């Protein structure tokens, strides 16, 4: 079982995920480099992802689609900002529009992955940076929680009334 530590910083709008795997660094790196492996864990269990493009080089782009339990479909892309095999890579993750291109005017987040040998396995650290609270909300809607936004509205109303 991987040791997972998650630090959330609601003021800086960042999240750090630290996980320890028994597999060597090259093996973990490979899980990200190979789209057939990546799609087996990238989407949430109820929103599996399918990568239709995966150019794992600086300036390269990946495109993926996630499908929801009720037939919803949501497209996303990675833009590789840096790739330093097998130590680290950084991507910009955003929405794909209907035309299969990065959607204009939609938010994106930055994810930096680092891998290092640790205790005979691999320690993976991912740092996600969000541009704003609104962007976080929109990015979450990229699938999973359809009801989230309306529920948030209700909560804001309750709090405002208090």
């Amino acid at each position, binding site marked *: 079982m991987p040791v*997972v530590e*998650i630090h959330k910083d609601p003021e800086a709008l960042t999240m750090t995920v630290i996980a320890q795997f028994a597999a060597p660094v090259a093996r973990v790196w490979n899980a990200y480099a190979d789209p057939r*492996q990546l799609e*087996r864990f990238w989407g949430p269990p109820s929103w599996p992802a399918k990568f239709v493009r995966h150019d794992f080089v600086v300036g390269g782009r990946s495109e993926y689609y996630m499908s929801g339990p009720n037939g919803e479909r949501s497209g996303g892309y990675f833009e590789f900002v840096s790739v330093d095999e097998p130590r680290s890579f950084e991507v910009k993750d955003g929405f794909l529009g209907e035309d299969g291109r990065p959607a204009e005017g939609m938010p994106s987040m930055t994810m930096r992955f680092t891998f290092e040998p640790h205790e005979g396995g691999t320690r993976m650290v991912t740092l996600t940076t969000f541009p704003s*609270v609104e962007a976080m909300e929109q990015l979450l809607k990229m699938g999973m929680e359809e009801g989230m936004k309306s529920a948030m509205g209700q909560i804001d109303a309750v709090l405002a009334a208090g």
Partner: protein
Amino acid sequence: MTKQSAAAARSQNMEKQSSPGLRPVLSYNQMVVRRESPADLDRLFGALADSTRRDILARVMKADASVSELAERYRMSFAAVQKHVAVLERAHLVTKRKDGRAQRVAGNPKAVQRANRLLSQFEQIWQARINGLEELLGKSDQGE
């Protein structure tokens, strides 16, 4: 389902670790079964479902207060008020900080509350992702 149960159990554990001595508001089953309703929302609605907690929240949103100051205002024990504050804290509605021997409770600004709730959603996604990656790595170890 088992994978998700494991993820839920793990995040439940983390919750326990981050607030020692406090019972999680949610039951294990709720978290597993109600995939559509994130634990965080349940926690939030749970926190707001009690009139004392709403009252405490309204007070500390106006001005910070220590737990003992709050306890003086309600017909309940210090420990009971402390429990209410802990529920509000887990729902990201208030924060507690030490001020000498006293603990001061402050209402969280709305933006921080929202950011916290949203980050918890991303946390769940990442938990699932890590579990999936772990499973994938385990399988290929056996297969090769």
